[in-house]
């Protein structure tokens, strides 16, 4: 009797969900962050529901199986707008964003009250390397550092340390496509010595990120500037949301998300900017990762302007000139400069949107547009995740992840937000496309 009272009590709490992001999955993440009964967690060990949000490309199935098996019993999975694997039984698939939170709560409640039994492990129950009974004392290792004790080799020192000349063991590992601090879908092979990054090799580029429809229209015909600037500000606010969660500022990140959700020409940034600067976000948190001139030119957009380059396609557009637009830029080009640049650009966009809405001004120059990711004249901004391979070695772990969060490296998707990828048969259900 006591056990099921415990289970009944456990089912009433908030639902711990570990989100795994597929294509266009981060929109789902932002939607769930606003619903109070869902608790998005950073590690699968803390979750009882694995949410697969968005379509996962085939080359990331193996890491997904690994993460699926890392949830402790009792757990289950829920697939949002992506095809569940055939051999999982009784798996829920949701397509409409609005009833996703409700579905998560019911799945969790069923799981806790035993009405739904836990999912099973997919991968075989075998150690990474066979070791029982082998080696000197049956633990799979020989001598001091040899063999595969307990299934894994011992760390050996590969190279001199790049900073203080003590050659100690370096740890090489692959940080997977589903690590929340990396852009969705990006995977990298990292070698650390201590907590200092020695080498960083990006293996899987992040998913191409969808942009608002208004940027696609702006290339064909004049569009109201207010709409373009609001979409730009919303994009920057979404990136700020992820970085603030990484820096440990939960409340301010949710405030940023609410601001982005209900963004209009009347909303302002002052309260948020004061909260950030007063809490020392621009001075004491992890920083570093300064861009060189040619790196800045390669990535373009706000990151380049943070490094002192003041090229902005908007300054060639007559409509913007009439509004008195002049590009704002920083000098240092490191992580803190990029955050200051982002906040200045949001302020500027809101100011331009207010003016443009009052005077109904449209963009004049079709054919090229300044997207929040970078200038888009004839070719869409390509993926720049190779930039990390030279930028991150030499940084401490916290600084490296802060630099990754501050650089928008994903390429632009060919479809705007909300439009279903061509392969999908049914068009999206109710929910308006723009709020994803």
């Amino acid at each position, binding site marked *: 009797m006591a056990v099921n009272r*415990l*289970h009944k*009590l*456990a*089912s*009433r*709490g*908030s639902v*711990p969900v570990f989100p795994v992001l597929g294509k266009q999955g981060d929109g789902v993440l932002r939607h769930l962050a606003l619903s*109070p*009964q*869902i*608790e998005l967690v*950073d*590690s699968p*060990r*803390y979750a*009882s529901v694995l949410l697969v949000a968005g379509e996962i490309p085939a080359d990331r199935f193996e890491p997904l199986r690994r993460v699926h098996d890392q949830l*402790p*019993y*009792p757990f289950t999975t829920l697939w949002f707008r992506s095809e569940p694997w055939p051999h999982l039984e009784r798996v829920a698939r949701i397509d409409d964003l609005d009833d996703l939170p409700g579905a998560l709560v019911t799945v969790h409640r069923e799981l*806790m009250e035993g009405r739904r039994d836990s999912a099973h492990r997919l991968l075989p129950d075998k*150690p*990474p390397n066979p070791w029982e009974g082998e080696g000197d004392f049956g633990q799979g290792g020989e001598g001091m550092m040899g063999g595969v*004790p*307990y*299934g*894994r080799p011992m760390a050996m020192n590969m190279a001199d340390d790049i900073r203080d000349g003590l050659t100690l063991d370096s*740890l090489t*590992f692959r940080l997977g496509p589903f*690590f*929340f*601090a990396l852009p969705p879908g990006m995977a990298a092979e990292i070698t*650390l010595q*201590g*907590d200092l990054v020695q080498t960083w090799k990006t293996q899987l580029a992040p998913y191409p990120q969808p942009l608002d429809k208004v940027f696609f229209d702006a290339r064909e015909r004049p569009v109201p500037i207010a709409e373009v600037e609001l979409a730009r500000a919303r994009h920057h606010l979404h990136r700020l949301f992820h970085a*603030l*969660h*990484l*820096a*440990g*500022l*939960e*409340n301010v990140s*949710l*405030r940023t998300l*609410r601001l982005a959700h209900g963004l209009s020409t009347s909303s302002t940034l002052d309260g948020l900017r004061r*909260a950030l600067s007063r*809490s*020392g*976000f621009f001075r*004491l*948190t*992890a*920083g570093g990762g300064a861009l060189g001139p040619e790196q800045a030119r390669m990535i373009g957009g706000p990151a380049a302007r943070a490094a002192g380059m003041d090229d902005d396609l908007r300054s060639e557009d007559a409509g913007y000139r009439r509004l008195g637009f002049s590009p704002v830029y920083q000098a240092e080009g490191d992580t803190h400069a990029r955050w200051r640049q982002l906040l200045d650009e949001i302020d500027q966009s809101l100011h331009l949107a207010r003016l443009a809405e009052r005077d109904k001004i449209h963009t004049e120059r079709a054919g090229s547009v300044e997207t929040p990711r970078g200038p888009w004249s004839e070719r869409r901004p390509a993926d720049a995740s190779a930039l990390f391979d030279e930028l991150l070695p030499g940084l*401490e*772990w*916290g*600084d490296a992840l*802060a630099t990754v969060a501050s650089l928008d490296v994903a390429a632009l998707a060919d479809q705007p937000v909300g439009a279903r990828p061509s392969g999908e048969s049914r068009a999206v259900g109710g929910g308006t496309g723009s709020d994803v």
Partner: protein
Amino acid sequence: MFSELFLPVLMVIFMLVVGGYAVAVLDRLVASALGTPQAGGIWLAPMARGAWLLTQHANATEAPDWRAWRLAPALYLALAASGLAVVPWSASLVATDLITSVVLWGSVEALATVVIFLHGWSANSLLALIGGYRYVALGLSYILISMFVLIGVALPAESLQFTQVVASQEGLWNVIRQPLGLPLFLIVGLGMTFWGPLNLADSTDLAGGTASEISGPPRLVWDMARAAMLVAFSGVAATAFLGGWLGPWLPGPLWMSLKMLAVLSVLLLLGRLLPRLAPERCVTLMWVVLLPLSFIDLVWAGAVALWE
């Protein structure tokens, strides 16, 4: 025999349970006050979370140091209990009134660093290891500041006993007599319970740091131990700086719990408002800025103690 032995044990266990629950509820109150809506009843949510953790299976890594891994959360809870055992609730109502209780609290802080490193090390997983090592840099730095501040408090009391320290604050509380003391001690408290800006051990950029590989009952004990250490710290801070059980009208223990709740809410608020510091900047801040400040606080306390 009873009052000598079982009363202290019951007192400490009562403080652990009620204090831990109070921390969980207060944390959710502060979160909802700052704008993060909390699902379900704030009073019920900690119970539900505890029940969920008890039903969840415990995780294991490939080759952990099993004994140390299971022992670390329990050791951290025991340290919190010994901290609470030293906190005096009234002139006579104190669990264990050692002559050198201030030094014992200093050693609880030093041993907390050992236990948190052990928790990170024994999981044999990368993110936990980085969390453990990063925390030791902070853990070894805040011990000095805490000791200078506590010595400053022990000066007017002319003894290393918390009951004497409270007695010495009869006329004027230390928070007014030694203005630099409480802010520095709050920073030490954040460091000791790796909460908010000084959370280098279980931070979000390490997916939970030392606790990234535990789930189920071990994680419940780790969270309870963290909450208990917060309560123990706020008890010591209230005793050392806010005049412990002293106060007009209300009985001693009531004053003590009010002051502990005040210190707790300040800590939880700081935890929610400030971003996490970079470890390197944190160590430099502690050694180059806060240590000289604690020197000044000590000299100030000495001067005041002399001229009183």
